[in-house]
């Protein structure tokens, strides 16, 4: 088996010990002095890095990063309200269409002077093919005789 690359050894190093025995690389490392040496060097490097103090980030770091980020357009305020207003407008228009005819001022009730014309109309309408003659009879029952 050829010697593994540095990246392959670094990955091997992060595998838990119990799982390493199942890897083909393990047998090679056990018999290859060069690879064992490389592994020990990697382990020492990791130890040295872990021993270094954590870097303190400057306060202005985020501001600098934020300045370089592309500006994402903010959701528009008015288009949302516009849709809401349009919806409300449609609802009001529907409500007006449905209810305004009922809210309009009712017509004045005709005076008794027109009563004979209405009675004549009722009697003449009894000749309609599909007239409800019984309802004409109910209407005419209360008709008073002409003075």
């Amino acid at each position, binding site marked *: 088996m050829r010697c593994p690359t540095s990246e392959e050894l670094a990955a091997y190093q992060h595998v838990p010990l119990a799982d390493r025995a199942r890897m083909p690389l393990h047998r090679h490392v056990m018999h290859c002095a060069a690879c064992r040496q490389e592994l020990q060097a990697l382990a020492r490097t990791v130890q040295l890095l872990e021993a270094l103090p954590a870097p303190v980030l400057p306060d202005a770091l985020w501001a600098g990063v934020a300045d370089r980020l592309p500006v994402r357009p903010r959701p528009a305020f008015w288009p949302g309200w516009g849709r809401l207003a349009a919806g409300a407008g449609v609802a009001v228009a529907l409500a007006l269409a449905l209810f305004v005819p009922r809210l309009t001022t*009712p*017509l*004045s*009730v*005709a*005076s008794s*002077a*027109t*009563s*004979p*014309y*209405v*009675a*004549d*109309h*009722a*009697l*003449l*309408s*009894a*000749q*309609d*093919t*599909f*007239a*409800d*003659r*019984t*309802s*004409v*009879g*109910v*209407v*005419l*029952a*209360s*008709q*008073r*005789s*002409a003075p």
Partner: protein
Amino acid sequence: MTRGWKLISLVLSIALLVGLGCWRYPALRRVDGRSAAQWLAFAEQAGRTVSYHAEGATWANGQRAHFTLEQGRAGCYTLQTTDANGQRCTMGCDGHRLWYTNDQHAAKVVSAAPSSTTPAPVAGRILGTGELAGCSVVRLAVQSGDTWKEITVDRHTGVILAMTTQFRHRRISAMRVEKIAYRDVTVHPCTLPTAGALATATPAQVRKALGRDALQATWLPAGMQLAQIYQTVCCCGHQGMIVVRYSDGVSTLTLSQTANCPCEMGSGCLQAPSGHTLVAIRKVGAVRVIAVGPFDAGTMRKVLDSVR
């Protein structure tokens, strides 16, 4: 796919298309092989040819009443209504005259229009079938302007057994036969005096009364046609009132016209106490025109404005 399955699919597709067509176009619906127009024609014919005695309940103007109807042949009938307050009205038609009289001593006689001149309704559709007063019935709907009627017709005889009338989606009257006996009925001739009657007017009589030909509407609601022109006496006693009647078979519109009548009456559109009927008044030259009909104010004004 086998040949059988193909055939079943074809039949189901055709049935689906026919069903959708009948739903979308009510005129295509049929009961006992008759379309809505044929059922309405059947009912119209039954009104002139079938003789029977019927009793039932009716409702109009917020009043409930019981009615008894003696329907003879040739469209002759005698109808009596008695409301919950005991007020009675008797109406009748002997083929030549239509008349009514009531407990208030009010009475009127009208020259009956020949039934052949009555126009057919403007539109009709089948609503369904059912049973009423022990009869198998078909339910139909007819529309005239803002007036909508549901008419229930005996499937065997064509006689109208129930009718509900709505004006702008508001129920204004309803009648229902509870008992019916098909038998020969004798209808007696009208015996009321004819003074003040609405009598059919000749063109010469119209010119004598108004000094000109009768004013007529040049615009009318859909389906309305001239049915008859009458001559009568105004309620103030003024001779020479002319009444022009238009009808579509479902509703009537009248134009009462007088010239030089002493009755004081302003112009405008008013609601009759009965509710759905409107009274619109306008002066055209020397002639005062009073339009009465079951239409909205806009329609009534449009009719009056078109009077020439």
